[in-house]
């Protein structure tokens, strides 16, 4: 796994690097001392894993994650930040407390390495063109006080709401600051279908399709949402589904 360390303190990065040197499965490919440079480095190096400090000058760790269109595996490394960590759902994240314990770090790395392997096996070997968001990619979502890492495959529906897009997964419906057109361009169109001006649906979550007025369709998703599809898009959908 290729890892990037993001922390504003040189000694903290140094310390983590020396701890990580014991694990051959992790290769530290770079370090950053602030969020701005980290965003560039992530785009450039495409690491599998980032070690991220939450409190940093300029943008903090959460703000950094919100700016990424796809988020690698994230391990938070923080001195003491009960409040920030409480924002996450139980078990939804890996975090290490400073000073970092070697044993705890080992556990975290094993867990992530296990997850990575599972992903790689299921992935089709065909390389998708750069910049396309794959089903197994995850996004970071912060809605008010709550935070999630959401795999794209778990998202049933993207619904445009002004400058924001509401995403539906499990029982949650938070907003993210993205335009629907941007997502439409980036999302894998084999799985994500632009149903209308306001909606993108995940084809794997379709529960049933009914004929609707004027040759349109009404798609019912497994979460209970219903999305109307215009006649033009309906013919495209039929084409895709029959293939």
């Amino acid at each position: 796994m290729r890892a990037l360390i993001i922390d504003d303190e040189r000694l903290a990065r140094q310390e983590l690097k020396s701890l990580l040197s014991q694990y051959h499965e992790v290769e530290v490919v770079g370090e950053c001392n602030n969020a701005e440079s980290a965003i560039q480095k992530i785009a450039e190096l495409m690491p599998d894993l980032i070690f991220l400090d939450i409190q940093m000058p300029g943008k903090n760790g959460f703000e950094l994650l919100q700016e990424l269109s796809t988020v690698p595996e994230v391990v938070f490394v923080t001195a003491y930040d009960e409040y920030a960590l409480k924002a996450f759902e139980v078990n939804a994240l890996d975090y290490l407390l400073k000073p970092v314990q070697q044993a705890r770090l080992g556990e975290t790395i094993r867990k992530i390495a296990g997850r990575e392997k599972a992903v790689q096996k299921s992935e089709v070997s065909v390389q998708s063109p750069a910049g396309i968001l794959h089903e197994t990619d995850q996004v970071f979502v912060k809605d008010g006080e709550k935070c999630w890492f959401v795999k794209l495959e778990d998202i049933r529906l993207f619904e445009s709401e002004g400058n924001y897009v509401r995403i539906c997964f499990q029982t949650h419906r938070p907003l993210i600051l993205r335009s629907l057109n941007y997502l439409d361009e980036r999302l894998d169109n084999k799985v994500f279908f632009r149903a209308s001006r306001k909606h993108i649906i995940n084809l794997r979550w379709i529960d049933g399709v009914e004929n609707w007025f004027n040759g349109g369709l009404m798609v019912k998703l497994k979460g209970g949402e219903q999305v109307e599809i215009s006649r033009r898009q309906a013919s495209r959908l039929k084409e895709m589904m029959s293939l």
Partner: protein
Amino acid sequence: MMNRKAIYWLCNIGGWFLYVLLYALLNLNKALNEDKKIWLWFVIFFFGLFFSHVYRYLIVRFQWLQMQISQVIPRLILSCLSFAVVLAFITVSTQVALYLMNASPGTEASTIALSQVYVSTILGYLLIFVLWTVIYFAVHYFLNYKNAEIENLKWQASITEIELNKLKSQLNPHFVFNCMNSIRALVDEEPAKAKEAVTQLANILRNTLMMGRSRLVPFGEEMKVVKDYLALESIRLEERLEVSMDIAPESNTFEVPPLMLQTLVENGIKHGIARLTGGGKLDIRSRVEADGLHIEIRNSGQYKGNTDSETGFGIVNTLQRLSLLYDGKARFEIANETNDTVITQLLIPKL
């Protein structure tokens, strides 16, 4: 609840009415006609009420309720005595006047032993006024008792809160754990510096834990803690923290509240310099003037008022401590000096 003024008037009027009623029923004055007696009763009632009200005015005006017992007792005795004498003079005069009006031409005023009447009347009124005083003070103490208890509890709670705030603001866990993490890295890189850092951290922790023990410490001692703290922050922030100091030598012996300067310096770093990607400068100056010790802290950054609950917390805590110790004579202010410099000014008066 009935208001206090209403209670007072009810008791005062009721009391004098009862007294006059008793006086009338016992029929102590056989020398006067029934229709003349009514006048006498009216005079007693009116002047009794009047003088007791003047008495109450004195008690309220000169805050006798707040005085110590040894101070208030002579005042009360003197007032009771004077009111009794004056009231006795008025009522006896009235009696005499009514008697003379009533008297048939043969009788003489001199047949009544006036002096004897005076003494007994004065003693009677003295008893009434003493009784009045006892009731008045008893009612007040009873009504104030509950309020005093609530006030006392509130005061206790605020003291406890300040103590707690002191501890909370001092033991900044973020700083402590970050520090330990940096020291871990230093152990490999620069063992000598790591050793020094451990000592500095120990000093800060010790000072924090002992803080409640002394109310004031010499400024020189406080500066030692601040220097240890800054040394540790320099390890973490490295070239991002630039420190300068200008401490007048005579300020070193000046007594200051412990860890107050440290809190303010820490605020300047935590909310100012540490938030700047490129880091910043911290400058501490002190000088002694006639009104006390002047301390100025300048740090890079921008002060945005009390929007941040954590900054607000440190400021509130400092203000509370200063008002508790110096009772409004200390001064404390945070402001933006320029667009990118925050100035914290502190004036500690001589105790």
